[in-house]
């Protein structure tokens, strides 16, 4: 080991692997009754991919990548709004007796 600095990729891999573990334990604690809302909310949050779309759609000049970015913004927005709204709608239905 002679390199004094760690490649940033290693840091990102660290984040990734730790997040897989967090996900593993958190998801096992989800009650089976809420597995459908789990799927719809994971759907909504995976649309955080919109950050990439916003960067593509952000430059002032029109270009192919700006158009691709715009379409991706629309798709991700459908998912974000639709995903969170339908999750909320489902969760409202889960009520106790009385």
């Amino acid at each position, binding site marked *: 080991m002679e390199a004094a600095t760690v490649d940033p990729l290693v840091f990102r891999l660290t984040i990734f692997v730790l997040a897989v573990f967090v996900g593993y334990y958190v998801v096992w604690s989800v009650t089976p009754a809420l597995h*459908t809302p789990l799927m719809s909310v994971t759907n909504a949050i995976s649309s955080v*991919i919109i950050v990439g779309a916003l960067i593509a759609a952000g*430059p002032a000049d029109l270009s192919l990548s700006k158009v691709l970015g*715009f379409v991706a*913004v*629309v798709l991700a927005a459908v*998912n974000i709004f639709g995903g969170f709204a339908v999750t909320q709608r489902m969760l409202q239905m889960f009520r106790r007796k009385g």
Partner: protein
Amino acid sequence: MGANLSAVAYLIAGICFVMALRGLSSPTTARAGNLHGIAGMVIAGATTLAAPGVLSYGLILAGLVIGGAIGTVIAIKIEMRAMPQLVAAFHSLVGMAAVLVAAAALYQPDAYGIGTVGTIKGLSLVEMSLGAVIGTVTFSGSVVAFAKLQGMVGGAPVVFPGQHWLNLAIGVAIVAIGVRFVGSESHGLFWLMTALAFLVGVLIIVPIGGADMPVVISMLNSYSGWAAAGIGFTLENSALIITGALVGSSGAILSYIMCKGMNRSFVSVILGGFGAAEGVVAAGGPARPVKSGSAEDAAFLLKNAASVIIVPGYGMAVAQAQHALREMGDKLTKAGVKVRYAIHPVAGRMPGHMNVLLAEANVPYDQVLELEAINSDFRATDVAFVIGANDVTNPIAKTDPTSPIYGMPVLDVEYAKTILFLKRSLASGYAGIGNELFYRNNTMMLFADAKKMCEDIVKYL
């Protein structure tokens, strides 16, 4: 906004998403969890909008308004019965968005700080390829799953000789092209790789039959997460990496739970071909006598019971019987009968689907129990009321090693004093096998439309 501040904001967004999933451990905390998710999304979006490269907001605003309006309208209008289709459709959008972002990064790498056209870092190209390929597979696979669930194409598995070799060959081709793409940054190769991935997505979903749909949806959920993570690496964005990892592992766990609920190995589900014979009357031998009853008979048995366990299956949802069923349950509860609902892990068409359908019909969630929690109670139960379910009650899964469902966990309705089977006919379920319970002495078949029968029973209670 400085790069360090942005990085912290993305981390906070990631934590919000963890909290959103954590909230789902109980229905009482779930709504707060969802709000955390929304907060995380707002933080991530706002941080990106404040980035130095984002200069023009007109198109972005238009995109958000269009997409937001479509998404909101769908979310309000969608029937709970159609949730599996909706989720499949949403997965396809995540997949497509991942591909578009990867392509945008390829055409304008300077916006993402990963180099300039022609000199993109090799590592970024690898990450980009992973995101694009997984995203495309998610997209086309979800479209096929959507079409199957929506009934636009037949749910029967499509199998042909050499199928798996073909998939393998295309997979190898994708890797080979990917290696050359990383070496050359050729846009043509990028799209060729994507086109082949599109084909793979279709080919891996077509052989999977209707009964395995819950696994398919969970699997695609997982893929959409890995695609997002791949793009997260390209964009060096921690919120995206964290989220991708969360979603990827969530989908994988759900796939595992669904496979276990059917006692199938993940590999055998992927290889497909299960559940070809659908709705066939159990073949072989002369017709055996069954006891069938009327709504009045059923009402008599139910109201004289001390405890009733209702076992709903997807057939209940098809018949839209959940509201009538809940009314029946309410009447019985009022009459002093202990009423509970037993849910098999694969009772619906996606994980947890039946719970949502019952919740929609205002069944209190504390009356709804999972298989492990309630299975030992059937012995002390007077009436098991099976509505629109079949295979998940079949005792053959415990006794006959040659049965296709052998080893699948089943609800022990056979131990109840009386079994009421509400079904339209003696046809078999998804697995294409007959159910011995129909012919038992303590079974009474109620041949009718599920909704009509529940309404009639209510009249006699």
